[in-house]
């Protein structure tokens, strides 16, 4: 049969070009981050860029092999894949290697494998299978089950604990939204962020109240919220037509109360649940006073390194801040600083546009599918990439709290890269079959 080669001819070239460009650029940058400015570049599997290079080659090879496999295979094995990932995620909690306080690694010789990176793929496939079977997420039960499919691996990862990767699973919200989850989810999400920011800011200091004396400033925020909320609801009630009045008023009151409860829960979580260093990270992000003068060391130096890049940067293997050890973890979570210091605003913008372009291309691929499975899966992959960028780049730019997750294609880490290579390869194969299958 010539069908396979026909299909391979339909593989999306632009996606491959973007993928290889990002991977090449990331590896090129990792060489600089791993070697620093002095001396010649050393090679070998003892070096970070050497190891990563091997991972790149293996990943590309595996990706190439995957392209040869029929798409139906991935659809049929979606649950198997999902189950295997859950098993690995459970297993790592028991026999995993503890690194930096989290049990998230399988040690294999000199290499480590992070099952949580592959779990994203399993979740994406399973979600795609479920959504395509149901034909959308309209009913509450469907939505709940979809959330559970995503939530189980996320929950296992939270046990490691690896909060960053859990946050990445929020990327599936985009896929679910596309499949029928109410847009209210996004609005509620936005409202929750606003509420959280206000809660953090007003809870940061103590104020003096009449009668009560000195107490946390959060109380004033809550009182203000109640007062303004009540006033707002009254206005809203007068502005609406009588026949909608009861329903809208009820909803508004419920929303306001929910927001208040969220704020109270959030405040309690901040005060009671979070450990001091986590609370400090959040306070640092909002420019609040912290007791520990080094609390904002990482992010301050990350921003300084980026700022030192200027328009065009200091050149490859020439960044002083990143090359001389001022920026922590700059081969992994803070690697964007290296790129940004050495290639400046121009280079950083090019990378972000490439990255965003890659995400948008994936979303574009998703939209041209007749197969719901492929569409949901593509949205899942795109959403995950987007969340990585939001959290990681947001963090180094000082716009998001310090949460340790890798920046795809750039950060050192074989599992992460290989997982993305697999995900993209599956997507490309599914996309290439778009004319020949009708699911």
């Amino acid at each position: 049969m010539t069908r396979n080669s026909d299909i391979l001819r339909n593989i999306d070239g632009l996606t491959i070009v973007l993928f290889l460009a990002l991977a090449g650029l990331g590896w090129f940058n990792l060489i600089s981050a791993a070697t620093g400015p002095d001396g010649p570049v050393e090679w070998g599997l003892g070096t970070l860029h050497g190891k990563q290079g091997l991972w790149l080659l293996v990943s590309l090879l595996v990706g190439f092999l995957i392209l040869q496999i029929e798409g139906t295979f991935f659809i049929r094995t979606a649950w198997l894949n999902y189950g295997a990932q859950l098993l690995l995620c459970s297993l790592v909690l028991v026999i995993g290697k503890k690194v930096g306080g989290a049990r998230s690694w399988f040690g294999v010789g000199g290499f480590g494998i992070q099952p949580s990176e592959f779990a994203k793929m399993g979740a994406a496939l399973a979600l795609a299978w479920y959504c395509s079977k149901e034909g959308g997420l309209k009913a509450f039960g469907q939505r709940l089950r979809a959330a559970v499919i995503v939530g189980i691996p996320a929950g296992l990862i939270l046990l490691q604990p690896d909060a960053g990767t859990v946050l990445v699973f929020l990327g599936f919200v985009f896929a679910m939204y596309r499949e029928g989850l109410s847009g209210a989810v996004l609005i509620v999400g936005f409202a929750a962020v606003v509420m959280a920011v206000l809660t953090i800011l007003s809870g940061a200091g103590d104020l003096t109240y009449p009668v009560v004396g000195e107490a946390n400033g959060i109380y004033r925020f809550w009182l203000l919220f109640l007062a303004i909320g009540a006033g707002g609801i009254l206005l809203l009630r007068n502005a609406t037509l009588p026949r909608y009045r009861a329903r809208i008023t009820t909803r508004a009151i419920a929303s306001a109360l929910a927001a208040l409860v969220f704020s109270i829960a959030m405040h309690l979580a901040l005060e009671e649940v979070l450990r001091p260093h986590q609370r400090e990270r959040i306070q640092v992000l909002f420019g609040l006073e912290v007791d520990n003068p080094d609390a904002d060391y990482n992010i301050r130096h990350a921003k300084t390194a980026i700022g030192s890049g200027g328009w065009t940067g200091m050149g490859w293997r020439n960044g002083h801040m990143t090359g001389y050890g001022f920026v922590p973890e700059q081969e992994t979570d803070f690697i964007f600083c290296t790129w940004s210091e050495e290639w400046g605003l121009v280079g950083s913008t090019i990378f972000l546009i490439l990255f965003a372009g890659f995400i948008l291309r994936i979303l574009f691929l998703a939209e041209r599918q007749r197969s719901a499975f492929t569409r949901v899966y593509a949205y899942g992959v795109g959403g995950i990439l987007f969340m990585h960028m939001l959290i990681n780049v947001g963090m180094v730019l000082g716009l998001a709290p310090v949460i340790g997750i890798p920046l795809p294609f750039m950060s050192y880490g074989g599992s992460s890269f290989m997982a993305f290579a697999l995900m993209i390869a599956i997507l490309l194969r599914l996309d290439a079959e778009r004319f020949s299958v009708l699911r």
Partner: protein
Amino acid sequence: MDVRFRTVVLLVIFFTGAFILRLFSLQIWQPEWKEKATTLTSDRHSIPPSRGLLLDRHGELLVGSRAAHDLMVLPRELPEMDSAFVAKTAAWTGMTIGELEEALSKAKRYSRYKKSNVRRGIDVVEHARMAASVHQFPGFSFRTRPVRDHIHGIAGHLIGEYAEASRDDLNSDPFYRMGDRIGRSGLERVYELELRGVKGRESVVVDARNRVRDTATGEGNDKPAESGQDLTLTLDRDLQAFAERLMQQKKGSVVAIEPKSGEVLAMVSAPGFDPDLLVGSQRGKTYNALMADPDKPLFNRAVKATYRPGSIWKMVQGLVALDEGEIRPNTRFVCDRSIIGCHGPHTQDNLSNAVIHSCNPYFYKVMQRVVNSADGKDRFERAAAGLDAWRNRVMAFGFGTNLGGRLPGTSKGNIPGSAYYDGVYGKGSWDFGTIYSISIGEGELLTTPLQMANLAATLANRGWYRTPHFIRSVGNMGKPSGLGLRMDTEVDAVHFEPVIKAMRQVVEDPSGTGRRARIDGIAVCGKTGTVQDEPRKDHSVFIAFAPEDNPQIAVSVYVENAGFGGQWAAPIAALLIEQYLTGSVANVNRLNRILEADLTDPYPEPEPATAEAVPVMDAQPESP
């Protein structure tokens, strides 16, 4: 296209755009991030300038620079040190184990990543020994800095100290950094700004542990150090060295001035010290010993000590009286010795003879006339007005002033006026009879050796002087303004002739009190003084200038508790004059007598002499 697709696409574009804007803000809009990066990743070293040299009046080097080495330690690079290694290291550094451990723990407390001083001021020889095995002691290194090299070890008082800057210095002038040196006293302090030069700067790239990784390029802020300006002093190196030799084992002071310029040719305060001992590692020990010495070797007697001038004051009295018209050269007074004692067989001298015989009653009466010539309703008022008029005349000779001196601590001495005595006795409670001892240079009258030398220069110039100073040129800028200003005593030049003639006789006459200052072939004019200092021996004083016509050098010599003026101060002055004018000393016996004399015991010998017994003492041949 689905509206939900568009929503997601817009979200991606929105956040990507927001990140790019944020990048623009950090990388372009807010330059403070870039500046902060430069601050963090670069360490600016200052390059010390070489300090200006000090030269004598002929351009001979007096004070140079040489390298001194400090042993530094970088605690981060120190190995684990067991007790045997500590002992080995201590032996290598030349410190005790306790000192070494204290220095190391102090360094660690300061910073693990920055170098600290372990031992300062290691000299060349020791540095050579230590440098040979420095590789066995990881973490240790040397820092080299220039220190002063006092080539001849002379003029320590005048040149002053160049020592580590104090906390006050660091606070008051941003030029100085911890460990820098500053002129502490003398000319080193007065001309600090000219001598110190301009620091250079170089910046290097450092890593997060402050290790140097690269030299910065294209910073534009780097600049080389600029050397300080050289100082050309007025001192004559050979004369200064000779004068210091003469004053060994004596206490007191010698000042020599070139009369026509006011340039100080030599200035000695004895006992002195070797300024090179105040450089380098032995400084602390030496300094403490010098401070504790009761003879105060660090005290610059030449400008700071105030002595009663004694009989050399009689010339001032005579000149003022002549100019006021109260006496004429041939005015005679009976040497009645009723109120004030005298010595020698004279009975009724004129002015010249009174100077030659150092007749006390004569000048008592001279000053009495001057003081009491003033108007007033009673003798008390007349004395007050007359004294103040007299004081003004005397201060025109530079007494009671610091002579425009810029050396810190330069003393003015004391010329008492009516205000002074009103303070002591009460207004209207004193007249000339109360204060007469100042008429012969005793009492409350206080002068410095520099002022006495200036008197000799004024006499040499017949009525004027230039303010004494020590600097001929700063760099190649010539003499700083304000040095060597011409001052006039307003005493008519004609009045100087009888006085100078008498001074010539003091030295030349076989019965003159200054006969020991006679030099064959050179017309020396001088005057002895013998100042009581009960119960110790008298101070021996002499001022002189030479030659009589066209004088080249004016000298004051003050030897504490040595005896008569003619006995010690006069021959020292003569040796200086002869050395300066002829380049050598012909009278070897006189030289040896002075060099061998030890006059440091201030208490009288068994047969004390109470007066300037002129004929007996000075009739003696100077040497067998």
